[in-house]
């Protein structure tokens, strides 16, 4: 080895040659070196284009005076003036506000208390109660709304039974308060998971230190854990606002009969109307986008990184629970009562309803039991087709979305920081687009983008819309798993002589398999349940279960609706429980 002195200035000058296989042209070498980066940028930009595609045509439409497909459009603010002057829009805004406020309070309060009780106290039957409490995430809000309306609605079974036996009925479910409470109940599990994961992120040593300093387990929980999860409260409130504004099934089914309109149902009613006013609908959608945007940006500031709390499943706490003794049975019983009233009885009632022609406390159940509802559903080609369509969309679309998520992850986490930021940012854009707006946006996009006409009315457009809608959820599930894999294992393939593609196929793919399966199942279940984004996109031959159920319910065909709900539950519930309860 020579010292720092005496080196020739260049290895080329010293006679170094290009190894075999390296192109002799400098331009070719430059291009070869840049190719992987060019590919990544191309994918990242296409992903961005896909995920913002529902928004752009909408925003454009809201500022022009004629429908997108007509010539001679002029820029105008007329759509917005017209919108703000519409009294039903004004009342929808006011209703949305109260709906979101009450729903958020219910969801946050229930989620907070339940998380504290079920995650920190040593209760009898804790695990079972936890899964039961989380059940509404497995069931779509659509099904929950249907079952509540059949059971607790005016003229529902419980209402009539109470009137007959106790001489007083239930407060009217078909009201702003009723729908807000149901919406809160249906999103309480989300709040629960958020608080549970916030608790899981608190290092166990902090609590241990309090115990060592002489605090009882209960005191350590109240004095250390509760204050530390308080910052999550703000995040939870903002998240619930978004969920409530996004909510379509509950306002449609519970609020519809009482003519209580919120923004999403305003959009739905005006959007599917026969002579729909494109400008007005777009303007309303843009207002909704802006509202959601405010809360999503707020969430970002509340916690910094959005992904920290988005993975469902939550870490299980492996630390000492507060011993409860006999009081534990009382607490468990109260939680069980809540679950029975909000989830268990309504679900069972729905199942029962699907097997009967009519249910009333005044008629003996044995006289109304029948298989007619299922016969109707399975005997009518349009219904069977909607089930088959849903399966195709869920399986094919779910696979496609999983592949897209995987590529997105590879491009994000195996690339320079600029690309990573772009992909991550793109991946979370649809979080700020309500499902119904995704539907309208894609509908408009198919009108104005070239080639879009081939897509409209096909199952492919549903798959695209669903993929956009759930991409943030899938990405949030897959991303962290990908980050956990030590990149050295792929580099080891490279060093051993394998190209980049080989390192991904030989190492990343097999190691990521459990996460990919989870990601696919999540897409499957989500696509199966989705109805909001589909309501503007399905054609005569491409109805899905969700849209069919909505139509049947609107027509008052409760039996077949219940039967379709049961079919949905049978096909999705086991998978959903497998995905969410794996830990």
């Amino acid at each position, binding site marked *: *080895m020579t010292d720092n002195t005496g080196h020739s200035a*260049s290895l080329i000058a010293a006679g170094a040659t290009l190894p075999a*296989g390296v192109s002799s042209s400098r331009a070719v070498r430059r291009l070869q070196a840049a190719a992987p980066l060019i590919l990544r940028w191309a994918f990242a930009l296409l992903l961005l284009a896909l995920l913002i595609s529902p928004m752009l045509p909408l925003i454009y439409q809201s500022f022009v005076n004629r429908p997108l497909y007509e010539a001679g459009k002029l820029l105008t603010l007329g759509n917005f003036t017209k919108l703000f002057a519409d009294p039903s829009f004004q009342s929808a805004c006011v209703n949305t506000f109260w709906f979101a406020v009450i729903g958020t309070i219910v969801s946050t309060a229930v989620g907070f208390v339940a998380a504290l009780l079920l995650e920190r106290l040593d209760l009898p039957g804790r695990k079972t109660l936890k899964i039961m409490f989380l059940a509404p995430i497995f069931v779509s809000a659509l099904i929950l709304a249907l079952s509540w309306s059949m059971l607790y609605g005016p003229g529902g079974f419980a209402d009539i039974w109470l009137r007959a036996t106790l001489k007083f009925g239930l407060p009217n479910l078909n009201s702003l308060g009723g729908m807000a409470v149901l919406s809160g109940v249906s999103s309480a599990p989300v709040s629960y998971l958020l608080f549970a994961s916030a608790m899981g992120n608190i290092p166990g040593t902090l609590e241990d230190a309090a115990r060592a300093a002489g605090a009882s387990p209960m005191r350590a929980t109240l004095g250390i854990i509760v204050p530390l999860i308080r910052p999550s409260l703000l995040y939870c409130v903002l998240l619930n606002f978004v969920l409530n504004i996004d909510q379509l099934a509950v306002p449609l089914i519970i609020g519809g009969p009482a003519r209580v309109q919120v923004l999403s149902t305003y959009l739905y009613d005006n959007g599917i109307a026969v002579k729909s006013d494109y400008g007005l609908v777009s303007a309303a959608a843009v207002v909704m986008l802006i509202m959601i945007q405010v809360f999503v940006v707020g969430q970002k500031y509340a916690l910094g990184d959005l992904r920290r709390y988005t993975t469902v499943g939550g870490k299980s706490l492996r630390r000492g629970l507060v011993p409860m003794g006999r009081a534990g049975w009382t607490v468990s019983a109260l939680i069980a009562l809540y679950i029975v009233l909000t989830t268990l009885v309504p679900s069972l009632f729905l199942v029962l309803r699907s097997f009967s022609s009519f249910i009333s406390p005044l008629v003996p159940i044995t006289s109304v039991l029948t298989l007619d509802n299922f016969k109707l559903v399975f005997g009518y080609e349009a219904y069977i087709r909607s089930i088959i369509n849903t399966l195709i969309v869920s399986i094919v679309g779910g696979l496609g979305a999983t592949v897209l998520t995987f590529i997105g992850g590879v491009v994000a986490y195996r690339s320079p920081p600029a690309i990573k930021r772009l992909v991550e940012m793109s991946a979370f854009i649809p979080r700020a687009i309500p499902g119904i707006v995704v539907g309208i946006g894609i509908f408009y996009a198919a009108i104005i983008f070239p080639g879009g006409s081939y897509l409209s009315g096909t199952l492919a457009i549903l798959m695209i819309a669903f993929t956009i809608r759930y991409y943030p959820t899938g990405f949030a599930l897959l991303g962290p798993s990908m980050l956990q894999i030590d990149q050295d294992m792929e*580099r080891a*393939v490279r060093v051993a002589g394998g190209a980049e593609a080989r390192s991904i196929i*030989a190492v990343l793919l097999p190691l990521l398999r459990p996460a990919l399966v989870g990601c696919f199942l999540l897409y499957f279940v989500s696509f199966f349940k989705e109805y909001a984004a589909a309501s503007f996109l399905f054609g005569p031959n491409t109805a899905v279960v969700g849209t069919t159920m909505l139509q049947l319910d609107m027509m008052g065909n409760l039996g077949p609706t219940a039967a379709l709900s049961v079919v949905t539950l049978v096909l999705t519930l086991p998978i959903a429980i497998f995905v969410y309860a794996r830990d």
Partner: protein
Amino acid sequence: MTNAVQLRQVSKSFGPVTVLDGIDLDVPEGSFTSLLGPSGCGKTTLLNLIGGLDRPTGGEIGFGGDLIYSAAQAVNVPTEKRNVGYVFQSYALWPHMTVLQNVSYPLRIRRLPAAERNAKAREMLDKLELGALADRYPFQLSGGQQQRVAIARSLVYQPRLLLLDEPLSNLDAQLRERARAWLKSVHESFGLTVILVTHDQAEALSLSDHIVLLSKGHIEQQGPALEIYERPRTAYAAEFVGSANVIPGRLAADGLSVEAAGGTSVLTAGPPGTPQSAAAVAIRPQAIRFANGNDGAGTIVPFVAKTVLYLGGLYEITGTTPLGELRVLSPNAPPADREIQIFLPAEACIRVEP
């Protein structure tokens, strides 16, 4: 002797942060070279540039007569075409493959028939005394075994160069000693060029024929291990390799004595330097003795012991002197709370750049 690796003016920066700056380095064929330095000095980055896991921002890299990287010529041979072995700090064994599959996979990439690659992989496992573990999965192995498998995996395809990124740092102290001896014997029996990254000077001294000492992205000193230890060029080199006491000062009129801040001079061995230039004296703790009135050429200073640590057979004594705080390694404990005289032999006092 030809050079297995040549680096010319290699630099690497991440945005505005320069991690490596103008590195010139030649690694002789068949040598065991250590890249030594504290964390953050850029040693692992340098290894990654050589292995192709990272891309330099400037300069040239050659392997033998082949140009592997050149910023000016837009040459960058990808990692997989460089034919190097690389042992990661985490070992990076593929957890879904058995030991045999791990070791034979590089041969599969090279499209060897199954029978041949299994035979070669088994042969390599046997050579490294891992034959019995062939069907185990990585998680069933101890840390030491994992390290051997990682080395087997990177040797099986006969790379032109073996790169090791702190391969011993995940082993406990006892195992590390054994692994060190084993690594040395592997190097000797395979006759391979090895480049090792380490922050452990004892590891570098015991394993390598050449040491490249890095500091803040540049080469502080490089040369044979013995030379680095016995003739450190700078205060940093003296402190990092063999942890010397360093006394900063100024060269006296005789060009040999260094006058410390307090006015006391320390006599060093030649050659004489320019009087009045800034200089420092490095002296190893074990070279300092208690004075006995019969000491020869050197410097005697008063010493008050402050802390005494028994290390087993030796005492590490830290005390104050007019030269500042000094560390002494001695077989005898000093008398408590009393000033004694210590002797700094001139031949052990190395003059270094401050």
